[in-house]
Each structure stands twice: as C-alpha cells, then as structure tokens.
C-alpha cells in the first residue's frame, strides 16, 4: 500500500490515507526509507483554507442571526426606557422637514404645505406641554395622548386587551379542546380527513381577513341577533379573535391527547368504562399539561394580535364591565398611533413601553407553556 500522501485535488473527492482504517501496519523501524514512514502529522486533520473559511463564515452568519434577534429585544426595551427618566425633550421633538410622502402627489402640493404646517403646529404644542409619562400618568384611567394635556393612562388599554383575550379564550378553548377530543377518541376515519384540513385552512387565514370578515359581516349579524347598541365592541372582537385562536389550541391539545399512552385507554375500556367516560376521565386528565400549554399559547397569541382588534373592536379607550362596549387593546393602540407619532417624544416612548409589555407578556406565556410541554415529554420518555 502506498503510504505517501496523494495531493488532494481542489474539487472532488480524493482518497486520502488518513484515519485508522487506512493506516497500514507500522513499518519496521530503521529499515524503511524515511519518506514512507507514517508521521504523526499525517494523521492530524489537514488544514484547508476553504474548510476554514466555510466554517467561520457560517458561524459568523449564525452569530449575526442571533445578534439581530437580540437587537430586536434590546432596541424595543431601550426605546421604552426613557419612561423612567423623564427629561426635557423639546430639542428632539421637531422634525418639520419630514414630508408626508404618501398622498402628496395625489392631493397636490398645496395640501402638502398645509399638512406640513399642521405638523409644525403640533410639534410646537407638544414641545410646550410635554405630558410627563410619570408613573402616576401611566396608571391613570385616561388614554388621550393627542391633546393639550396628554394623558398616557395604559389601564384602559390593558383592560381592553384582557377583555378581548379572555373572551376569545373562553370561546376558543372549549371548542378546540372538545374538537381535539373528538378527533382523538370518537371520530371515524373519514371525518378526520375533513376536520384536519379545515383546521389547517383556518390556521392559514391571515388575521386581516378574519378582521375584515368580522367588520363587515359578523358585526352586523351579531348586532341583529342580540340587539345591542354599539356595532363594534369587545364581544365582536372576542368572537373574531377566537377564530384565530382555535387552530393553535386545537393543534397543541390534539398533540397532547394523541400522546396519551394507549394502555391507559385500553385499560379503562377493559374495565367497562364507556368511550365518553374514558375520554373525559382518563385521556383528558392525562393530557392536562399539554392542554394547559395549548390554552396558554392561545392566550399569548390573542393578547398580541393586532389586525383583528384594530378592525373589529371599535377602538375606544373606555373602561367598562360590559363586553358590549367598544374597547381598545394595547396592540391596536400601537398600530393606530405609531404612524403619527414624533420620533423620540413621550408618546413614542409610551408606545414602545406598550410594545415591551406585550413582548414580556407573550414571552412569559410561551416560556411557561414550553415548560409544561417539555415536562410532559420527559415524563413520557421516562415511562411514567
């Protein structure tokens, strides 16, 4: 066997004498010429520039991904940070050269000048009367950021978000869990082929489509059905949101129910329980961590959803016990007001604060849900 190194080509595979399988028996020392004796360096992985570069570049790109993702979190929190350090912000308020680019060509330059003039006036106003985003202001019950005395009470917004979210979970969780029970315990084979694609289709609906449907069709239908005063309110928003939440809860719950070990079901049936008793008292309790995680994930999605609430809830920052009055959620507030806010001023900071709250909330929910899912998986692998 040839113990010399064949020079590797630039492309293509080459057979190289590296690795234990290729190592011939060591030649008797002293007899063989030096060039054919196997050196220790020949067994080490040979350094190749293209390999080195490939690995470093790929690692760099991966690191850049991580850095960018981290940047999102850092940036959102950083922009909300000035809340805690109110300072004189007159100098950052004015960006009068900012042209209204859309609509200008359509409306004509005269209107553009008018719009610019209006902006100048607004920024002068807000420079003079910077509403402080003090803790007292933030915890007040009025959200009126565009006024002579800006009020940044986030309480109505938080209550609005919670109202819509709870209502949507209240509708979606039972329906989705029951449907998941149906598929995992009772459904004949053919119905699975209908229900699963239907859920996938529902999951694929963009939220703006659901919001649109709620706005034009569902709102009128529900108002005719129940006869309440405000056409767009928390109730309509909650019902519409449940359409978006059902696929999430269903998927995770069905996954949890399918993971229940077969022997439990069979033992229960063998002991004489009916299918319904088995499903409700054996399978569902066994799948509780996963089902709980499903509800948490649905909750997180509903809390952060923007388009549906923006279109279907009426967008009025009111506080009331009734579900039949309009509400404004935190996400809708960001969506509606971000376009008109001046970079760097208090309103801008408060909106970023809302975004930070949204982010922390959904992150916590997702983390807790993942703990539950992983616990269940670990238990299953351990055989419990």
């Amino acid at each position, binding site marked *: 066997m040839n113990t010399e190194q064949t020079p590797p080509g630039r492309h293509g595979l080459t057979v190289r004498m590296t690795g234990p399988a290729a190592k011939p028996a060591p030649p008797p020392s002293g007899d063989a010429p030096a060039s054919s004796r196997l050196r220790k360096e020949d067994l080490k992985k040979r350094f190749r520039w293209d390999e080195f570069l490939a690995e470093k570049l790929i690692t760099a790109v991966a690191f850049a991904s991580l850095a960018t*993702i981290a940047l999102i979190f850092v940036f959102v929190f950083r922009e909300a940070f000035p809340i805690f350090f109110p300072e004189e912000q007159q100098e950052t308020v004015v960006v009068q050269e900012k042209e209204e680019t859309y*609509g200008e060509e359509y409306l004509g330059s005269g209107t553009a000048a008018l719009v610019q003039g209006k902006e100048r006036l607004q920024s002068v106003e807000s420079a003079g009367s910077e509403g402080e985003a003090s803790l007292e202001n933030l915890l007040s019950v009025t959200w009126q950021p565009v006024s002579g005395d800006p009020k940044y009470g986030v309480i109505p917004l938080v209550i609005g978000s919670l109202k819509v979210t709870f209502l949507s979970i209240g509708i979606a969780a039972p329906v989705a869990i029951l*449907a998941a029970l149906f598929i995992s315990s009772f459904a004949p084979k053919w119905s699975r082929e209908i229900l699963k694609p239907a859920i996938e289709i529902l999951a694929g609906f963009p939220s703006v489509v659901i919001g649109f449907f709620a706005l034009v069709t569902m709102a009128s239908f529900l108002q005719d059905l129940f006869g309440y005063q405000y056409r767009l309110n928390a109730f309509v928003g909650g019902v519409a949101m449940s359409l978006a939440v059902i696929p999430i809860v269903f998927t995770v719950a069905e996954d949890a129910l399918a993971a229940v070990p077969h022997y439990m079901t069979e033992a229960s049936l063998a002991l004489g329980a009916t299918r319904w008793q088995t499903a409700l008292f054996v399978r569902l309790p066994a799948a509780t961590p996963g089902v709980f995680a499903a509800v948490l994930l649905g909750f997180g999605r509903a809390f*952060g959803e923007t388009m549906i609430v923006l279109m279907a809830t009426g967008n009025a920052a009111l506080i009331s016990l009734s579900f039949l009055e309009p509400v404004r959620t935190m996400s809708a507030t960001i969506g509606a007001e971000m376009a008109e806010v001046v970079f760097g001023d208090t309103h801008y900071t408060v909106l970023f604060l809302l975004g930070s709250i949204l*982010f922390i909330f*959904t992150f916590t929910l997702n983390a807790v849900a993942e703990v539950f899912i992983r616990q269940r998986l670990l238990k299953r692998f351990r055989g419990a």
Partner: protein
Amino acid sequence: MGLTAVAALSIVAVVVVVMGVIVAGAWDVLSWEFLTGVPREGMTEGGIFPAIVGTALLVMIMSVAGVPVGTVTAIYLSEYASVSSVLGRGIRFAVNTLAGVPAIVFGLFGLGFFVQFVGSGMDQLISGGAELKWAQPNILWASMTMALLTLPVVIVSVEEAMKTVPQDLRAASLALGATKWQTIWKIVLPNSMTGILTGGILAVSRGAGEVAPILFTGAAYFLPHLPGSLADQFMELGYHVYIMSTQSTNVDATKGIQYATTLVLLLLTFLLNFSAMFFRSRIRARQRS
C-alpha cells in the same frame, strides 16, 4: 360525545361560512381586469394590480434577505453546532422566543430601528442629512422587517429538512474522504432542497398575510405609480383591505372591491400553504422510508 362532534362540526361550518361569504361578496367584482387594472375613481372602481405587484415585490425582497441567512443559520445549527455549544443553544432560544413575538412589535422595531436609525444614518452618510431619502417608510425597510418576522420559520423548516438526511450518508461521504464542507455542499444541501423550499414558501405566505409590521414601515393606500426603487412606498393587498374597510371615504361603494381583494389575498395564501404542505409531506415520507 355528541358535544365533541358539535364542536368539531362548528369549526368546519365556520370555515365554510367565512369562505362562502367572501366568495359571494367578491363574485361580481373578480375578473381579469380587476387583477390587472389600477384603481380609479377614488378607489371605487378599477383593479388592484399595484397592490398585487407591491405584495409580490415585498415578499421577493424579503425572501432574498431572509432565506439565505436563515438557511445558513440552519446549516450551522444542524451541522456545526455541538449539542452543548453556547451559540447553538442561544440561537435556538432566540428563535423560539422570536417566534412568539407579536407582529406589531416587529413593526415597532422596523420603525424605530430601520426607518429612524439606519435610515437617517444612511441619509447622513449619503447627503450629510440634507436630503431625506432613506429615513422614511419604504419597501426596503418593510421587507427587512418581514424578513426578521419570518426568520424563525425558515430556520426551523430548513433544520427539520436537514435532520432527515440520514447520518449514514454523511458518514459515507466523510469516509470516502470528503471534507465537512464538501459533504454539506454536495450531499446534505441538495437533499434538503425540499425543506428550504418549504421554509421559503411558508415565509412568503406569512409575509404576504401579515399587515401589522408594514402598517408604518412602508405600506401606503394610494400611490400613483408602482415602486420604482427601494426607497419608494408600495401598495399591499392586506393593507389595502384594512384601509379600505376602515378608513375609505365611501365604504359602501367599495364593498365589492374589499371582498375581492380579500379573496385574492386568501387564495394566494392558500396556494402557498398547500404547496408548502405538499412539500412537507414529501419530506416526511422520505423520513419514514
């Protein structure tokens, strides 16, 4: 037991009803002229061609920005990162977290970072702050925001596909003397193409449907011409539906157009999702064999 059947049935019924209502509302308006024409008469007539073009441009730029980065990151996670590596675990954690962030927070980031920070930085570099070109919402920033939004989808899809390539294949390649990168480039990647495609399609589907991130990073309601450069704004299907149904001056006259635009968006999403599902089932089938 009947209760669960009722629940399941009601879900199917809801899907059918929603689709039916939208199709019924769009029936009269949908036509070839609608898809290729431009809006006229203050949006009460005409077509949505600019919105279709805007949406297509958005997802194209988004894919160019996001799919390669996501694929390379997935290669790192699947091939180079050891189980205990800090970077690997950090990336997985970050990807999982990012997947749960509400879309509107991406819009906030896009506005505060891309438009205000990067944009004004670019303006400073190019014209010393005199000309306001990049520090405004435009299609570039909107696409970058969307690329970030869909990055987790791409990473997860590609990594899933790369995991289905059998270890034996990699071991055989290495045993024949190929280097690690040669193995990845010539063996693993070609066999993961379906997964990369699936990831790209899912990202595009999500990108075409999400409106919240582009609300204030670049979408506009009426533009007299198509976007000519990366610094232009653009019309978009979902944004169009939103504005038209909530803020247009003549909501009733545009009802049909609203329904038809919604239907176009819905059909586009379905097409993309179904093709992604098709490719994904092919990956699973290969995994099982």
